[in-house]
């Protein structure tokens, strides 16, 4: 156990491009890879670093997130010795907000959480960049460099990000390897094959410096985020280093990248990189029965969670828990979330079904890799493809 880490999750993330999947859930609780939610990845990193507490800042009701996290016991965040998940909902808080949106309480909550903890370091994290970060190595690097602020990054081609991406990439001082000299918005970087050092929304910062920046953020009405704090570090000329992350990485920025991230898991190399590392990925476990595959089932290159019943054909797809695929139904290149039912003869190709969607007999849904069809929660898809609210 180490209580020298205070983790702060800034979950006020821009989710416009992920609607309708984010209509009623933050990006952090987007379902992923049959059994997970995106928050599981940073939370598992905390678990593997033996951290005991985390503070969450979200801007909406957060029901789906809290339902998933519960006491935090899954990730060892329920220790009586300094542990806990501290949740802060700021209903009025939105990204791209105008000044008056930030209430004093927002900064007070950060201040209280950090000053009350025994932590030496504050971790600022988000949930929209999918990765499996080894935090111990990051903190070791931070100490070795005698850094005040250390940001994790990965070298990736500019092209894996969308045109108006919200992320930053960094420029380094060539002589003092790893020292960050500029913070550049990806959106202002031309779309070409050049590699960029993309920030992956993980920052470690010494406690005293954090409190210092928090005061400045309060004065200037800034969000407590990797983005604004890296700019404050530059202004102050504090030592700020980049830590190179080499594992699997996927920024979830829009429906297409969300779809691709899931499909990436059907590639064994990606799957193993994310899941079969030294550190396990943990998620809230739920009681379940094994999945059943019927006489006529034909299932290839797919992932399935427990509690499914498959009688039809499933190819290159991901089925979450309690999905039923009836005989002669065909699911290809699709993501089917929990509790969906696909009736006889229905076909899906390049489709995302949110939870509890009912696809009626003989319905055909055909999207494209660039533009997968997304069916919102609780919809009923009629035979002619029209939607009925379930």
């Amino acid at each position, binding site marked *: 156990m180490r209580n020298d880490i205070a983790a702060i999750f800034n979950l006020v993330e821009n989710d416009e491009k992920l609607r309708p999947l984010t209509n009623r859930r933050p990006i952090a609780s987007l379902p992923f890879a049959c059994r997970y939610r995106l928050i599981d990845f940073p939370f598992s990193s905390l678990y593997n670093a033996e951290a005991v507490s985390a503070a969450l800042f979200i801007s909406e009701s957060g029901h789906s997130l809290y339902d998933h996290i519960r006491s935090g016991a899954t990730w060892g965040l329920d220790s009586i010795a300094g542990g806990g998940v501290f949740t802060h909902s700021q209903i009025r808080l939105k990204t791209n907000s105008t000044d008056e949106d930030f209430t004093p309480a927002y900064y007070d909550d950060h201040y209280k959480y950090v000053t009350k903890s025994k932590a030496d370091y504050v971790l600022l994290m988000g949930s929209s960049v999918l990765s499996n970060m080894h935090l111990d190595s990051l903190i070791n690097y931070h100490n070795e460099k005698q850094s005040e602020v250390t940001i994790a990054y990965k070298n990736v081609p500019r092209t894996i990000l969308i045109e108006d991406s919200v992320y930053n990439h960094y420029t380094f001082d060539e002589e003092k390897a790893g020292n960050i000299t500029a913070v550049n918005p990806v959106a202002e970087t031309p779309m070409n094959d050049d590699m960029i050092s993309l920030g992956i929304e993980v920052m470690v910062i010494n406690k005293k410096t954090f409190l210092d920046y928090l005061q400045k953020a309060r004065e200037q009405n800034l969000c407590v985020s990797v983005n604004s704090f890296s700019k404050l570090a530059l202004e102050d000329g504090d030592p700020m280093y980049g830590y190179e992350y080499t594992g699997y990485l996927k920024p979830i920025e829009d429906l297409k990248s969300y779809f691709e991230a899931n499909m990436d898991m059907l590639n064994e190399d990606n799957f193993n990189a994310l899941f079969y590392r030294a550190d396990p990925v943990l998620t809230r476990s739920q009681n379940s029965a094994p999945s059943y595959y019927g006489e006529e089932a034909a*299932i290839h290159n797919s992932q399935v969670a427990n509690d499914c019943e498959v009688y039809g054909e499933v190819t290159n797809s991901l089925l979450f828990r309690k999905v039923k695929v009836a005989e002669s139904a065909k699911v290809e290149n699709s993501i089917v979330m929990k509790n969906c039912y696909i009736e006889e003869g229905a076909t899906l190709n390049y489709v995302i079904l949110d939870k509890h969607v009912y696809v009626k007999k003989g319905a055909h849904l055909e999207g494209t890799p660039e533009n997968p069809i997304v069916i919102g929660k609780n919809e009923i898809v009629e035979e002619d493809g029209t939607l009925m609210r379930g």
Partner: protein
Amino acid sequence: MIRREGRSNRHFRRSMKTETVAMILAGGQGSRLGKLTKQIAKPAVPFGGNYRIIDFALSNCANSGINNVGVVTQYQPLVLNRHVGNGSSWGLNRHNGGATILQPYSSVDGEKFFKGTSHAVYQNINFIDRQNPDYVVILSGDHIYKMDYEKMLDFHKEKAASLTVGVMPVEWEEASRFGVMNTDRTDRITEFQEKPDEPKSNLASMGIYIFNWPRLKQYLIDNQSKNRQMDDFGHHVIPAYLRNSESVYAYSFKGYWKDVGTVESLWQANMEFLNPEHELDIRDSKWKIYSQNPNTTPQFLTNTAKVKNSMITDGCYVAGEVDHSILSHNVKVGKHSVIKDSVIMPGAVIGENVKIEKAIIGENANIYDGATIIGDNGEISVVGYGEEVGGYKDAE
């Protein structure tokens, strides 16, 4: 007791004091399961892909509103103890409740190892007395079934019984494996034979008893002090109750119930479990069977996988062919391997070009490339816990 309303509120049934304590007897070695129980107690043997045998009794307790459960262990208890823990997997870790592992211990009165079923209860009188219940439900940890013990308790109260025995008819040729009994028209038991050579009835005891606790305690303590044998429910306690004209009743259970005491019956019960129309209805959310759910990845079926009539559990990786079989969690099946009519227990790794038919493969076993494991002459082939088959060892 405050009666619940509707089936969905089962977990919220409560009593002002602890009315009922359940004792699950999980100490048996299960020697007829051979290799499968060499390292673990029978109730801890994996079943149906996602479960261990004791999950059925524990889930029945939770679903019947019995939150106080003692699990009496003795033989190779390590896996079982880790599995049961404080009972949180079954929602038993509640106010004034919980699952408690009861293990033999040494005390000033000597060692408290158990000589038989009722002796195991005798040795744990202190545990039961601490809850001071009216009734104690005695269960066995090695049966596959779903049963509402509260209905049986209602019957027990209605009959003002001192002891109620759960019974069901079995095939005549099977009857001599059980305690069998005759009843009168009011369901009162008039005659009881424990594992008779020539059974006079095919009404078999399921090893499920409800006793009025103060009376049972009296029997156990009195006889022990007089050095009269009172070690086993079937051999000693029930006959003593009948001799003394206690009111002993039989409660008929209708439904699926399977004693999985042999390799053959364990395999059979798993094969039956595979049937989606199975009477146990494992997907019924109103009577869930809970278990410890391991944190593992989704199932991965590759391009070369061929799966039919089978159950597969999270954490499995399947590149071969699986036909009418159960794969428990974290099982790996390599390319060109064929698994048919078999049960593969958790964590087993099956290489490439392996043939497995009519077999039970134990937990964490390693079956190397090219190995063949086929049960024949009606015998089920068994590979034990952590056993290795094929590979360099057997290479020519």
